[in-house]
């Protein structure tokens, strides 16, 4: 009796959890495929009549700046990721491969910085960005995304510790200088760590709402483009639903292809 009960309970709880996760998302998908008349006449759990009614998606793209949001997000994403990788790997190389005065101090600075909650210190960071004349520019976001990533540096250091120092030494004997060693040997070997950082930071930047909301009022990123639906579209839920689905789709695709990397990256990032 007990043997039969345990698996039943187990699968029942898993199925309930799956429904709790998927139901809120499914009803939004339903709404996004309904015409506005259909939306007002049917309940939220009624599936759409026509599963291929994409008119809401077209309107959402046309009326709001979703396309511009995607373009801006891609630009900010690409530059920030490249910057983070170069800055982070270089810093990790210095800290892991050199013995120099102030090394302990620098490590301490990185460590303490992970504790400062960046949401609140924006009160003061804002004054600095403003002072640099970067308010309302994409450069502000790029700078903030590159400058606040200490987790990436930790992931790089951790991975670099597993690259044998004898490789560096052999190259030094062959007359390579430090830059060549970093660029030709270390950086290529760091590829798995770079992939991890690209994925977890890429997702974080794509989802970031607070920084673009605060620093870039003049043009939308994807989060702020979606947020703009809150006012003017008021009760036009079929449009809001379509825009929401548009924002979620890239995440679904990324998740399906990169599952393993995402799990690994999160564990690496959290247990720093």
């Amino acid at each position: 009796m007990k043997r039969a009960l345990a698996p039943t309970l187990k699968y029942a709880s898993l199925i309930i959890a799956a429904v709790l996760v998927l139901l809120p998302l499914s009803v939004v998908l339903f709404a996004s495929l309904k015409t506005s008349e259909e939306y007002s006449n049917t309940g939220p759990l009624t599936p759409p009549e026509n599963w291929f009614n994409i008119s809401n998606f077209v309107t959402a793209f046309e009326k709001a700046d979703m396309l511009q949001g995607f373009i801006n997000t891609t630009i900010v994403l690409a530059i920030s990721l490249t910057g983070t990788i170069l800055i982070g790997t270089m810093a990790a190389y210095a800290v892991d491969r050199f013995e120099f005065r102030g090394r302990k101090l620098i490590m301490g600075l990185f460590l303490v910085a992970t504790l400062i909650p960046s949401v609140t210190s924006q009160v003061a960071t804002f004054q600095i960005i403003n002072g640099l004349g970067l308010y309302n520019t994409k450069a502000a976001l790029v700078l903030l995304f590159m400058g606040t990533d200490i987790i990436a540096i930790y992931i790089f250091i951790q991975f670099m510790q597993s690259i044998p120092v004898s490789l560096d030494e052999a190259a030094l004997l062959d007359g390579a200088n430090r830059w060549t060693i970093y660029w030709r040997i270390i950086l290529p070997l760091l590829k798995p760590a770079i992939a991890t950082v690209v994925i977890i930071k890429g997702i974080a930047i794509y989802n970031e709402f607070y920084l673009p909301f605060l620093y870039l009022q003049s043009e939308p990123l994807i989060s702020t483009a979606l947020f703009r639906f809150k006012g003017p579209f008021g009760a036009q839920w079929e449009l809001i639903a379509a825009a929401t689905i548009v924002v979620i789709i890239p995440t679904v695709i990324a998740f399906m292809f990169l599952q393993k990397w995402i799990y690994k990256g999160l564990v690496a990032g959290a247990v720093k």
Partner: protein
Amino acid sequence: MSTPSAVSEDATVTLTTGGRGRKPHRGRTSGRRLLTALTPYLFVAVAVGLLLLLTYAPAVNMIWYSLNNWTGFGEVDDFVGLDNYIEVFTNPKIFAVFGVSLYYFVASFVQMAIALYFAALLSFSTRFSNFFRGVLFFPYLINGVAIGFVFLYLFQPGGTLDTVLGWFGLADPPQWLGDSSIANFALASTSVWRYTGLNFVLFLGAIQSIPSELYEAAELDGAGKWAQFRFIIFPGIRRIIGLSFILAISGSLSVFEIPYIMTSGANGTTTFVIQTVQTAFQFRQVGLASAMAVILLAIVLIVTWLQRKFFPDEKVDLT
């Protein structure tokens, strides 16, 4: 050249470097020696520069602003001492936001319990385990604004939740987001929906890194699933639970996105960070807002220090 004096203070640090930077060969030109000496600093310069500019300079400025009455424009010259701090703790309107954090704090324990339950469940062999793992985790990846809209839609009067409750005969549901006695529960549950996946994956990762021989040995000794959880899994993931615990405290104080997007802080749902942001950027009281930010920073630092004290890392390999 640099001496390792800065390092020798901490005997536990062992570095596997080549040590080339430390011992330059004699007889090289001084320019070359200087370059060799500078190499590590050049590599680390940009990272440290950005760190100082965007993390430490704001933190220091923030403390200075917090001691002044300042609107965010012009000179910071109206020194008021600790007045801003006194204001935070004595103005009931500001102090009330700490109460809102409690909802999220309690919610984060619910979240950890759910995550631990499913992580333990899926660590034993399960059909479709990849599917269930993916589904449980996926909400964590979704854009916060999108989640806000998904749940605005779910909670709206006559919406999904009301319809489902209607099936079970609950005909007169409350205004989930409009009623101030319920709104915080609704928002905190949204937060649980969003973040459980992260805890779950971290717990699952920790459980799976426990060597499987331990379970086999336990099974041979006749230990049941519960005993395996109690004596093998739980001790194996204590550290990650400790980590989740500090994230729960600092996280519940820094809640921003979900209440801001869903209710804009209306109906008693203003959190500490919403209050701080509004104080700074709408009411132009940067001094007061800085005092609030400094208080949050202090709380987070204290909590982290306590966590390090009670859950010390088994292996410290970085510092």
